[in-house]
């Protein structure tokens, strides 16, 4: 943990901003170390239920590992005539978006010397399921996603708005959802 003193005071949000700034500086002369590969391995269980495990990734020039493996169950709810062994895959996108933006808010606040007391958000994705059921005129994915933050911090409403705007600007998941990405799916 680190404390960053700025003109607006000293904040302690538990984000090691100095380490991140140091990393940014170090990666300027070693861009190859910045190339990360994130991985997940998935296995069909039964019906539309699958289990996905995440532990290893690659970065800073070598294999890396989380402290422990995390296992995610994905399924569909009873209204889809499924067993509901876990959340639906498209809900995982909401998990990713909310957690990424929240991490961004905390990091930007730390960097700007803003003390946070609570950061809560709700995420809603509007989804017309006729697409996945085969209607060619309806897209498969979300039509619209809305995130609503409620933030209590030592900052003006304008500073809080700026935190949320900057967290979107630097969010990996916000980018992945709002901009197209090449996706290759093949059979090994």
């Amino acid at each position: 943990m680190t404390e960053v003193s700025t003109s607006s005071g000293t904040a302690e949000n538990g984000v090691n901003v100095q380490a991140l700034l140091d990393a940014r500086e170090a990666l300027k002369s070693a861009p190859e170390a910045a190339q990360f590969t994130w991985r997940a391995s998935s296995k069909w269980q039964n019906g539309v239920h699958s289990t996905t495990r995440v532990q290893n990734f690659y970065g800073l020039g070598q294999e890396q590992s989380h402290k422990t493996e995390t296992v995610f169950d994905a399924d569909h709810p009873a209204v889809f005539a499924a067993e509901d062994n876990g959340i639906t895959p498209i809900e995982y996108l909401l998990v990713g978006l909310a957690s990424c933006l929240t991490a961004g808010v905390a990091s930007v606040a730390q960097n700007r010397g803003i003390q946070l007391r609570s950061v809560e958000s709700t995420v809603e994705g509007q989804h017309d399921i006729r697409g996945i059921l085969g209607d060619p005129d309806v897209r498969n994915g979300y039509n619209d996603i809305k995130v609503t933050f409620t933030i209590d911090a030592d900052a003006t409403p304008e500073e809080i708005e700026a935190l949320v705007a900057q967290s979107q600007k630097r969010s990996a998941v916000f980018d992945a959802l709002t901009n197209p990405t090449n996706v290759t799916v093949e059979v090994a």
Partner: protein
Amino acid sequence: MANSWRHERWDSLRLLTPNWQTDLPGYAYAGPDPDGYLTAVEVADLIAGYAAASAAPVRTGTAVTSLRRTEDGYAVVTTAGEFRCRTVVLASGACNLPSVPDWQAAVPAKVDQLTPFDYRAPDQLADGGVLVVGASATGVQLADEIRRSGRPVVLSVGEHVRLPRLYRGRDVLWWMAASGVWDQRFDELDDLDRARRLPSPQLAGTPERRTLDLNALVADGVELVGRWAALRDGRALFSGGLRNVFSLADLKMRRLLSTFDEWAERTGAAADAPDPYAPTGVPESARLQLDLGSGEIRTIVWATGYRPDYAWLDVPVLDGRGRLRHEGGVVDSAASPGLYALGLPVLRRRKSTFLYGIEDDAREIVGHLAGHLAGHVAGW
């Protein structure tokens, strides 16, 4: 002389700075319209007039094809022979070539493509829809005049800098100068890299002194879409992050205008009451893709920025991204003693790229250059 102003931009272009601020050393504007904005041709004439008044030994019609080190200085190869010199000031600017994304080559052939270097006026465009890519000064100006020609215009908007033309009764660039923003030095800025990459503000120098922000364009009937992120199967795919680029621009504008207010309060400067302004209106549903094969869009205008042309610079002073390595205009002095730059974004101050902004930079650079010629150790 002033070739890019005379030959490489569109017909209606005017300077963004008001005439009273268009002030070269010892050569101030003395015409009848101090609050107006020079046309591109008038800017070219101004520069030619300044060259005559200062009796500078200008060699017109002479292109530099190579600049390289010699034992005690530089060899400048031109279309009119070779020159030798001990010092060189690179003043060719940052806007020599259009900067367009790689995928322009994959745009369907039946869609015409223009950059600000070949666009002149709306009547040169095919009838039909126009996609203007980029919403900085160039993009908003071209979107506006093309829309006024009656053509449907879609404007692709990424991060941008929103500014009102007038604030509290004065030109916004008056505020930038008077409050000291333009004088902020390169070595005082928190993030110099970001300041140097800042897109040009959404401004136009019209006789009506009109604000040309996205709300004005939407009121004219321009359709906004997000940043053009990719071209796939003949379809332009736009970012869904439009709302956030609006928020960022609105927040930054509000912050800048409040620094003006604070400065006015502190100094007692005379100004009208603060103007209200509406946040940038978010379209109910911005399109995320556009089929370029459908015939809806007949022309794409790339207003995606400019880049410098250093093809002739045979001195190893560019970084991995093709940018000149310099410290406040002193080019990487180990590799190139006696090499200087002027007129690049935030070279030494925020105003470095403005006609009137060059004077302070030039004075300091020439001071360093004179010291170099006199054999002093480099340094300030």
